């Protein structure tokens, strides 16, 4: 398949998985809980990145997709007693339908305009969820007492980490193929992609579908982890902010970047908690995010890689 895989790729991934798998042995339950949120955020960030980081179709309304996944499975399991093993695939399928809806405007508009339409999508579903069939969606209050899949920090951690690593690895492999190159090419120059004989529509649709798949998967498992869902917490500009910032701080258009960004941000927030319990925390958190982003819009991954390059170059003079 020409993935350009090297032995050290396997070594790094294997080492990473091993360390993460042993984590419950070494860290406290509280830290594990934080890691669970980081895992979910990483899934959402990867989903955002597949769409926006790669193809340049910036989505300011990603919770639209995540929310469809979360609400579908919540409604199916809670209101219709559908078993989780059917509800989650159904949720993913619904999210992909949502992805198709979001894809339609992308046929005509891009850049800032698309970003705003996606924001409008999120606002629209936020308002509709509360008004249309509140007996199913729980209206403004949302739903609680949704079946949870795991009990205890360690189990929740293993489940969320497995999901995250499966998503990350498959996206990593997928993006190493020529498909990844083609998707990135769309962000650089959609006209030239067309002029090279490739159909941008097909590629974009694929990116939207993949992104929706991952968002739906993440959203569905997320709601079955939280056990509750509320429109205000989900379709929120702060949530968008966290997803985008995690991706960008880590490094867009990479897989390791969003993962790293998600862990960095989640832990930054949690480690500030004992020192700054109140609103100050978000001020510091936002300010750090802004400064990092201003300093290097390509993210920490890029900083790290360029340092590594410099190190390599000085090492073997290549």
């Amino acid at each position, binding site marked *: 398949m020409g993935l350009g895989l090297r032995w050290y790729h396997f070594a790094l991934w294997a080492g990473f998985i091993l360390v993460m798998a042993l984590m419950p042995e070494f860290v406290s339950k509280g830290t594990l809980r934080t890691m669970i949120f980081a895992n979910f955020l990483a899934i959402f960030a990867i989903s955002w990145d597949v769409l926006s980081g790669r193809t340049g179709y910036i989505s300011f309304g990603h919770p639209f997709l995540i929310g469809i996944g979360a609400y579908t499975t919540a409604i199916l399991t809670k209101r219709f007693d559908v078993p989780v093993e059917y509800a989650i695939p159904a949720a993913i399928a619904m999210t992909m339908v949502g992805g198709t809806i979001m894809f339609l405007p992308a046929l005509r508009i891009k850049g800032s305009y698309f970003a705003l339409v996606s924001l409008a999508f999120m606002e629209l579903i936020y308002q509709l969820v509360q008004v249309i069939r509140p007996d199913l969606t729980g209206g403004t209050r949302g739903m609680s007492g949704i079946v949870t899949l795991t009990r205890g920090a360690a189990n929740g951690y293993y489940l969320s980490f497995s999901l995250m690593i499966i998503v990350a690895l498959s996206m990593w492999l*997928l993006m190493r*193929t020529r498909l990844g190159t083609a998707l990135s090419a769309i962000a650089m120059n959609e006209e030239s992609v067309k002029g090279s004989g490739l159909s941008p529509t097909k590629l974009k649709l694929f990116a939207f579908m993949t992104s929706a798949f991952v968002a739906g998967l993440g959203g569905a498992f997320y709601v079955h982890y939280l056990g509750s869902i509320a429109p205000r917490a989900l379709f929120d500009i702060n949530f968008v902010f966290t997803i985008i910032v995690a991706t960008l701080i880590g490094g867009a258009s990479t897989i390791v970047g969003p993962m790293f960004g998600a862990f960095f941000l989640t832990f930054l927030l949690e480690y500030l908690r004992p020192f700054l319990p109140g609103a100050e925390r978000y001020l510091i958190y936002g300010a750090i995010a802004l400064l990092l982003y201003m300093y290097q819009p390509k993210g920490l991954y890029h900083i790290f890689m360029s340092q590594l390059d410099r190190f390599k170059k000085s090492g073997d003079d290549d």
Partner: protein
Amino acid sequence: MTKPLSIKNLVKNFGGLTATDDISFDLNEGQSTGLIGPNGAGKTTIFSQIMGEYRQTSGTIELYGTEISKLSTPARIRLGVSRTYQVPRPFAEFTVLENVRVGLMPDSIWKMITESPNVDREIELALSVGFSESDLRRTPDELSMGDLRKLEMARTMATNPRIMLLDEVFAGLTVGEIDQIAKLIQKMRSENMTFLIVSHDLKALEPLVDDAIAINYGKVIAQGSFASVISDKAVRTSYLGT
């Protein structure tokens, strides 16, 4: 024997402006044709309509006997036509090789994922337009205008065309670079490629083409052998200003 390209009564209106006005011409297999005319005459608009970037207002375009008006750009490229742009449009963050790779890709997501890139072919194409080994990992911001045109040629050739539409391939190039591109075109002519070439540099164009079409205000004003077209009176007054 069907013609590689056959254009009949092509009209394109932009609002009140008529960019191409009832244009008809054919290209023959393996023939190289110059398309000349002053700025704004409608040359690039013809290219855009052939490629499907603009839909013509009326008229027909046939590629090897297939009417293509309803086809998308990638579908037309699959039929064997491809173009370069007056202002090169590289993928800014890709290396030369990656730029060529995009041109070489099949338009099938499944094949993109399952098949390996043909790196040998990428290198061969890049070298054939005159890049050196050390250029292959450069990105467009490190390339000269000449290099960008070469890259444009390479990516166009990568789509495996039978007809190439070249738009101002010599603009902004040094004499050496013009020579290099000219040699490449000559080589492809000997391999039976069909060309339609737009250039202001008639001296450079002359050895590369068999025939020429001159247009002005969206109309064909002369058509025939290169020599006959440039000596045509109407062409001389409208274009050469003499």
